[in-house]
């Protein structure tokens, strides 16, 4: 086989920089094809799942969002009618969106700060730390419905533990889930109680911070606060970024606890009528699947936009150790 370096047929002059792809022997082609086919074969079940259970429903809902569709009857084309109605006529659209944005705007930052603080505390080397970590993680594995029922009692306006504590501190008792003002904060508190999953992820991230950085900072006279601010947090930014993205997606899809605690009503006074709850109501109680699909796509676009914004901002504040900013 002749290589480009020894090519002939051009007046005897050897080509120095010409490049010709090396011919592939026929037996390697067959092996390559067989490898590809084997690989495809083994990912086929996952691929099947992706196409049938993710991509097809996604495309189907996009189509149904442009129709009047009740699931049982055939869809009737309405074009952008559902979207127009949502933005201009539907009286609950902005209420539900507002509730969801309120929840996300408060729950995500609070949850991030709380999880980081807890992770820092749980990273201290003391005896019994594994027990403390378990205790803080346990609430996050309680099923959503069970935790909702539990918190209904904790936040009971008359007999609940929360108001008992407030009364003991000579503070006024609150309406909690019975109050339009305090219903969303109640749900936020409940959500923060289950911050264990994020704590574990931050804990893992803390293990990756090299001790040498802390030692060097100590030698330079940096105290604990400065070490946290200038070393720990910057090193933790990739994990913070991940949790922010996941938290954003989860907050906008908030449904189970609101549904269980308000029996699907979204009360009191629509204060816990979240966007996902409204989608559920339109789809399965009012039989307006096309309308609900349009709502779902608007939610998708909002979450996508916010996530892209987060990604775009990440270059300013996320530090990947060793990488150029």
């Amino acid at each position, binding site marked *: 086989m002749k290589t480009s370096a020894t090519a002939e047929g051009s007046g005897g002059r050897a080509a120095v920089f010409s490049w010709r792809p090396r011919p592939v022997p026929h037996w390697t082609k067959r092996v390559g094809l067989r490898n590809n086919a084997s690989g495809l074969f083994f990912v086929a079940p996952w691929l099947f799942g992706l196409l049938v259970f993710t991509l097809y429903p996604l495309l189907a809902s996009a189509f149904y969002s442009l129709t009047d569709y009740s699931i049982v009857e055939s869809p009737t084309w309405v074009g952008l009618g559902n979207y127009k109605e949502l933005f201009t006529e539907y009286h609950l659209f902005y209420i539900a969106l507002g509730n969801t944005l309120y929840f996300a705007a408060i729950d995500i930052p609070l949850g991030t700060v709380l999880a980081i603080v807890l992770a820092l505390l749980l990273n201290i080397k003391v005896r019994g730390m594994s027990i403390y970590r378990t205790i803080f993680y346990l609430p996050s594995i309680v099923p959503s419905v069970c935790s909702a029922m539990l918190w209904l009692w904790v936040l009971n*306006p008359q007999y609940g533990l929360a108001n008992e504590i407030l*009364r003991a501190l000579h503070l006024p008792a609150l309406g909690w889930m*019975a109050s339009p003002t305090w219903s969303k904060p109640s749900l936020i508190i409940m959500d923060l109680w289950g911050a264990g999953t994020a704590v574990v992820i931050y804990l893992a991230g803390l293990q990756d911070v090299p001790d040498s950085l802390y030692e060097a900072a100590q030698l330079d006279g940096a105290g604990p606060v400065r070490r946290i601010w200038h070393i720990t947090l910057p090193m933790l930014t990739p994990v913070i970024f991940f949790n922010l993205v996941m938290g954003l997606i989860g907050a906008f899809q908030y449904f189970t606890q609101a549904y269980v605690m308000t029996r699907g009503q979204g009360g009191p006074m629509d204060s816990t009528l979240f966007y996902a709850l409204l989608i559920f109501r339109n789809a399965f*109680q009012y039989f307006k699947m096309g309308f609900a699909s349009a709502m779902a796509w608007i939610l998708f676009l909002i979450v996508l936009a916010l996530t892209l914004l987060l990604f775009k901002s990440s270059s300013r504040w996320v530090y990947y150790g060793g990488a150029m900013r």
Partner: protein
Amino acid sequence: MALTKRLATLDRRAFLRRAGIGATSALLAACAPKPAPAPTTPAQVESTKAPEPTAVPEPTAEPTLAPAAPVTLEVWWVNWAEVWNQAMVDLGKAYTAANPNVQMEWTFSPEWQQKLLARVAAGDAPDVTYTYYGAQAGLASKDTFLALDEYAAQAGITSTTFLPSMWAESLWDGKLYCIPGGADFIVFFYSKTTFKNAGLDPEAPPKTAAELVDCSAKILKYDSAGNVDVMGYGPETDHLMYWSFIFGGDWYDPGQKKITANHPKNVEALEWLVEQVKKVGADKLTAWMTGQPDAYTPGNPFATGRSAFLTTGYWMGQTIDELAPDLEYGITHWPTLNGTPEERKNYIVQGWMVAIPKGAENADAAWGFVKSAFVDNNWKESCDTVNGCTVLAQMEQFNKCVMDLKGPDNRMTPYFHVFGETGSAGTKYWPVVPVNQMLFDEMVRAYNAAINGQKTAQQALDETTEIVQKELDKALS
């Protein structure tokens, strides 16, 4: 030898490939649709043991209902609770005992409605399904149920067979889409213990709205923290539905196809409710409603004598027997404006029904079960499942059955007539429109807006009318 040699030289890649093919084939085989059942040939009906007497006329030319070949009817039901679910299963077993060719397969699900839609759309409809007044019109208008007019006509079932309001709720667009299964006769249970503690005559429950307000004022007590400790009459979110009809209002004009949520009498009823809520305090009432266990939970306020009234049906007697065996209680009619029997025609009587979904594989056999269990033997089905009888001619049998079960010493026995009087007098029902669930939700929103002072009763109900009318126009177009 050749096989052994081949197996010995089988490499890991080849083994995994072949194992994958085998596993995928097994999965596809498991997911294959089940073969269609053999078509059933209707045979001559075997008559079940009919209750005596029955006013349902003898069928003139009834189709054969019990199939010749064995079938399994899939029955799709709401999840009431284990004891009542079991009662339905026993109902099915009794039918199978009389019709050995028909087996029953019950599924109880709180998400029956959502899953029913998906199943009908997928062409995998069950044979029989539960439905109720809040969903019937919406589902029927979406072509989810079979029209039962032919079956009913052949069985001699007419509008006079059932309670008028239950019959009306089973229709959509002039056709019959379900059979009334059980009616709710909603009355006032009152705690004689609480009455005595408030210095009221325990044998003189309120008969009028004014008397209700007076005795509630005497019963209402607050604790040292200012929360409600003992409640008289505390309006619940759906009570506007009941009071609106008692005040003489209505929610729908079928002739004009207009939502009449802002009917003057509805507004009057809501204004009256706002006044009652103000007497307790809207935030205190909401805290009470949110904070108390419901009537089916041990320690609930009625069982513990901390609430004077409970608005519910006769099934509650069983629960009270379990949770509060020592409680002294009585039962009275829902108070009306003037306390006269004539006003009882404004009581709501509605409940649940049984339908055959479109696409059911065994529609004829399903009808056989539905007719037997919910028409011919409605008195027994209602008695066994603690529901109100819906067949007019079987009310006496139903009453006797319940009394026999309860016995003469049961606390409910002397008052049981109240349920029958409510059921036989009441003619009102929630509108049979495809948007009735939305109408109910908007009614609740209007009620909450009014009692919290966000809107006047007129404003709140005007908004309800406008919102729901728009949806109704779309649904009917």
